[in-house]
């Protein structure tokens, strides 16, 4: 678990100087992916870089599992924090396998163990080691390089991974694919991830929680649905853009909107998982014909109490999305 407590960073020290990061407090629970998003210069990358001490906070403190990282050895700390950067940051003079195994090498693992680990990770990121292990980075496509970058960050099995716009430099189709892969990998390895991006679609797609930053401050933090359904300021609305309604349907989980019910689903009634989206519920109801009293049952997560998301509520959300959509331009 990562906790930022009133963290500020001023690059030019002194009172009154502009702060790149200004009084940021965020918690990232273990195993969750936090997206830091915002326009250029909003302080998102600096905030992330303070977590592995590539930057030092001017004020405030950062705790990892309760320990103030300012008191840890920076080099040791960084070996327990995976790091992925834009353009992959792979070393051109190392093979793919050697790139992946750098942190294990720094940690003094024997060569055979390093090689085995590199192969496992290449397998995990979908690059068969038989084909890719001995290649050099320049022999890979941009998307493949990013996969290697992810594998490298995971090599020593760090509990925390920092990702600085890792998919920013690849084409949109490859990016979508890498995002899907990251979700799959994250479901498997369950790291605590801080992910910096300026792509709002990426933020909603990947983030368990999102912190939207502007001018060094966190404007709003919460689940994707929080930002979509209850934007804190007009800036949030603006930043999310005109797809907000559609995205709200896509990224609001049923567990966030279902109403608790004492009774349980009767035989034949639709039951969806709490992690399914409102869009899924709409599809499900649509295929049933959409009777007015209908809806979907929502499984309580981890065996918790079940809930019900009614057709009326769905229509309510749809109404909101329609109302918030900008009016069509009159046809000429």
């Amino acid at each position, binding site marked *: 678990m990562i906790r930022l407590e009133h963290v500020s960073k001023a690059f030019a020290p002194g009172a009154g100087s502009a702060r790149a990061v200004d009084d940021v407090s965020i918690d990232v629970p273990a195993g969750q992916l936090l997206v830091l998003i915002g326009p250029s210069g909003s302080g998102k990358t600096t905030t992330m870089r303070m977590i592995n001490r590539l930057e030092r906070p001017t004020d405030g403190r950062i705790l990892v599992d309760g320990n103030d990282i300012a008191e840890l050895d920076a080099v040791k700390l960084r070996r327990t924090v995976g790091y992925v950067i834009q353009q992959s940051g792979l*070393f051109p003079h190392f093979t793919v396998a050697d790139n992946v195994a750098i942190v294990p090498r720094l940690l003094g693992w024997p060569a055979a163990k390093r090689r085995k680990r590199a192969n496992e990770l290449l397998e995990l990121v979908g690059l068969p080691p038989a084909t890719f292990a001995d290649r*050099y980075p320049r022999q890979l496509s941009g998307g493949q390089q990013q996969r290697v970058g992810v594998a490298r960050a995971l090599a020593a099995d760090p509990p925390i991974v920092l990702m600085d716009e890792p998919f920013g430099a690849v084409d949109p189709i490859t990016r979508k694919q890498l995002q899907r892969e990251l979700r799959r990998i994250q479901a498997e390895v369950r790291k605590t991830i801080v992910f910096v991006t300026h792509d709002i679609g990426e933020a909603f797609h990947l983030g368990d929680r999102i912190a939207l930053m502007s001018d060094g401050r966190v404007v709003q933090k919460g689940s994707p649905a929080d930002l979509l359904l209850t934007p804190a300021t007009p800036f949030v609305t603006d930043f999310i853009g005109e797809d907000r309604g559609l995205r709200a349907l896509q990224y609001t989980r049923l567990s966030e909107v279902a109403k608790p019910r004492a009774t349980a689903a009767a035989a034949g009634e639709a039951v969806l998982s709490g992690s399914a989206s409102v869009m899924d519920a709409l599809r499900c109801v649509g295929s049933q014909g959409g009777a007015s009293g209908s809806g979907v049952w929502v499984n309580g997560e981890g065996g918790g109490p079940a809930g019900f998301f009614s057709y009326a509520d769905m229509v309510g959300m749809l109404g909101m999305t329609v109302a918030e959509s900008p009016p069509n331009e009159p046809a000429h």
Partner: protein
Amino acid sequence: MRTLAHDPGYALLLTLQHVEIVGIAVLVALLVGIPTGIGIVRLRWLEAPVVNTASVLYTVPSLALFAVLIPFTGLGPEPAVVALILYSLLVIIRNTIAGIDSVDPAMVDAARGMGMTAAQRLVLVELPLGLPVIVAGVRLAVVSGIGIATIAAYVGAGGLGILIFDGIRTLNPDRVVAGALATSALALLADWGLLRLEKVLNRERRRPVEAGMA
């Protein structure tokens, strides 16, 4: 008249002397210059004083430098080796700095972020990636050293310059030409070899392409 063709042993001896003077000088300059360059990258305020001093030394004509050195070193190869060390230091220090500076900041950032110590960063990332530029400095030092070492024959250092000075003294243009050709051939050979090394290093250590299969 005795020509080189009649006495290949003598020509070989002079060539070896020449190579020895340049080789020892460049080797010492490397041993001193590379650590100095690395030190300057870490302690940047040293750059101006060190590089300026080396630049001033570089502008001193070789004959004048020999003359200054002889009271300390005596005649023979010693003043030649010392002078060549001083000349080579400038390019080697400067290219070591330029080589390390040429490393993509993203590489250095990645190295730091993964938990490399400053020494590991230097050995695993900065020196290997800066090597082509450093080798380019060595090439310059070797090639100009071969030329300057010719003049060192004047102070008794031996080497291929002997042919040229003998030729001038005895009004034997064949000898002058033979000496000049041999020196040029040596310089070209060294240049070619080191350039090839530079190219191989550049190819191996080229930055990764942004996208697309190579």
